[in-house]
């Protein structure tokens, strides 16, 4: 089961008129892994997802899913893929059950299996009491869970989720991931796109995406180790003055100001003492200053800064 490539993307490019949305990306995704495409809005995540599920045709390059070239035979791979678009796209004037039944019909899920799966998924996502409720009356989190159920009702071995938990409350997000972990345990391959670091960290591997390119791919831990900068947190009496001051410094990559502290990403060569003296020269009193472990966000910022 290990190292069996289910999705193989090579030299994939897609442009809309002048805009290059996906720029020559290469990607191998193994069976049973969870893969996160992490990137800011407009980085090409959604376009990549839509290319993967065959809604869009690439300008060049190809996508092989389970040995099928989907640009040539997209319909053959459809039973293999479950896709959940970024926008809620179910029938708002149908009930939860009517929506699920409709998609079961489309994927020709037979009656017996269907009943078992519907009961199980509804139970697991705590939607059972709302079976007859119209989709338009559901909360954001419930909608996403319903959309997920509809896209996995045919038991696809590959699941593509485009920003599945954007705008979802934390409780529903946890429910949502509970379902995903269960699917992963059953050997499903999961690809999600997300702008959230914490969500990406739940996956086996992360691909950092920016301006249509995949900058690097690695496990969350490796990514953290790979960081080239140094991160310090400063507590001081005048955080805003300090943050302004540091932003002018050339060796500072980024400054984030919180209510009680400042998080500064520095080039490796900078010494902690240099920073201390810069701040104290301004007459600001430092309460605490220390080097901390970089998180994914810092890595992302260092990669983008290059």
């Amino acid at each position, binding site marked *: 089961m290990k190292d069996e490539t289910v999705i193989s993307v090579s030299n994939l490019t897609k442009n809309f008129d002048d805009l290059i949305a996906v720029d020559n990306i290469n990607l191998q995704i193994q069976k049973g892994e969870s893969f996160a495409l992490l990137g800011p809005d407009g980085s090409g995540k959604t376009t990549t997802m839509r290319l993967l599920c065959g809604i*869009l045709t690439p300008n060049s390059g190809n996508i092989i899913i389970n040995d099928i070239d989907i640009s040539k035979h997209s319909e053959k791979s*459809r*039973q293999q893929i479950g*896709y959940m678009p970024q926008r809620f*796209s179910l*029938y708002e*004037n149908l009930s939860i059950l*009517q929506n699920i039944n409709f998609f079961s019909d*489309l*994927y020709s899920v037979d009656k017996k299996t269907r009943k078992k799966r519907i009961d199980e998924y509804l139970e697991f996502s705590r939607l059972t009491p709302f079976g007859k409720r119209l989709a338009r009356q559901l909360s954001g989190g419930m909608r996403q869970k319903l959309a997920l159920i509809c896209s996995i009702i045919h038991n696809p071995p590959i699941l593509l989720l485009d920003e599945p938990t954007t705008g979802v409350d934390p409780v529903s997000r946890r429910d949502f991931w509970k379902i995903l972990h269960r699917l992963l345990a059953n050997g499903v391959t999961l690809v999600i796109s997300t702008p959230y670091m914490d969500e990406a960290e739940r996956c086996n591997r992360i691909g950092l995406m920016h301006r249509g390119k995949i900058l690097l791919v690695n496990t969350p831990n490796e990514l953290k180790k790979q960081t080239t900068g140094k991160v310090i947190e400063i507590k001081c009496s005048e955080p805003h003055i300090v943050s302004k001051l540091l932003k002018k410094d050339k060796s500072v990559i980024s400054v984030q100001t919180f209510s009680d502290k400042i998080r500064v990403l520095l080039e490796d060569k900078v010494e902690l003492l240099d920073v201390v003296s810069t701040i104290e020269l301004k007459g600001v009193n430092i309460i605490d200053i220390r080097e901390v472990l970089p998180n994914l966000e810092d890595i992302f910022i260092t990669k983008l800064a290059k």
Partner: protein
Amino acid sequence: MRTILHIVKKEFLQVARDRAFLPLLFLAPILQSMLFGYTVATDVKNISTAVLDQDKTQDSRKFTESFSNSGYFHLKYYLQSDSEIENLLDSGKVKLVINVPKGFSRSLKRSEPTNIQVIVDGSNSNTANVILGYTTNISQRTSLKIIVEQLKNAKTRIPSVDSRFRAWYNPELRSVNFIVPGIICTVIAIVTTMLTSAAIVREREKGTLEQLMVSPIKPYQLILGKVLPFLLVGFVDAVVVLLVCMFWFKVPIHGSIALLLFLAIIFLSNTLGMGILISTVSRTQQQAMMTTLFLMIPWIILSGFIFPIENMPMAIQLITYLIPLRYFLIIIRDIVLKGVGLSVFWPQVAALVILGTVILTLSISRFHKRLE
């Protein structure tokens, strides 16, 4: 086939959810039939008329009476002076003023050419023309009577051509018989085009189309599934209008109703195709509705539904050949009024089949392109 039925089933579930839709489905055709049946009637009756009789003789009275006897005119006002005329016409209280000048009777008796003045409200040229026709007819009959009497006195035999008039297909010349069956066309065209385009655009607008596209459903199954429910809606509407036509307006149907309903399905392939076509150029449901209206108004005006195509300028007449409504109107009127069959209107049926094929092919290929 199963997949198509799944879509159809879903479409009906959605429609059933929309409470306002079902009554609309039946009310729209009934309302349209009533509106057109009662208002578009081009028969002109009970024309309100004023008489200014300056002669005040037996002859002049007899002449004005012949107007009220005809049944077309309602002599409402008897005037004393011509200063009253303007006010009556301006206020729209009368459509026609008959002015019999002093010396009418004397002039007649002397066998001199005798004039009367007829003033008609020409603001609606159609009605004015009809009124003038009736008036001319009555004056001519009066003069004919006088001539015949004088010739009789002279004991001469007179040659005459007397045209006996009989209207075939619609002996009483009821405009309802002509207009109401045509409503089958307009109702079907408006309702099905609008619903089809809106239903397809809705899938795109709500993003559900994307979800359908990743499923194993094929584009032709999707289109058929979306369109079949509206084929049924159009068919039901045709039946409703036909029933109103037969039982409310008592329009006799001389031909085969089965043939009419069958050809309605061929006509529906045209309007449903238009619906798909509109859906491919519209991004929102509102846009689809506006486009449908924008298209339907010229369709109806140029179809010959109310205004005869023969009266249109040549260039516009050529355009009407591209309008499916035109052909189905001829077919319906042929069936309802004349009771003739395919042997007469096969060219119209052929035109509908050809236009339908073109529209459907074009719209489906555009639909495919938009999917990508």
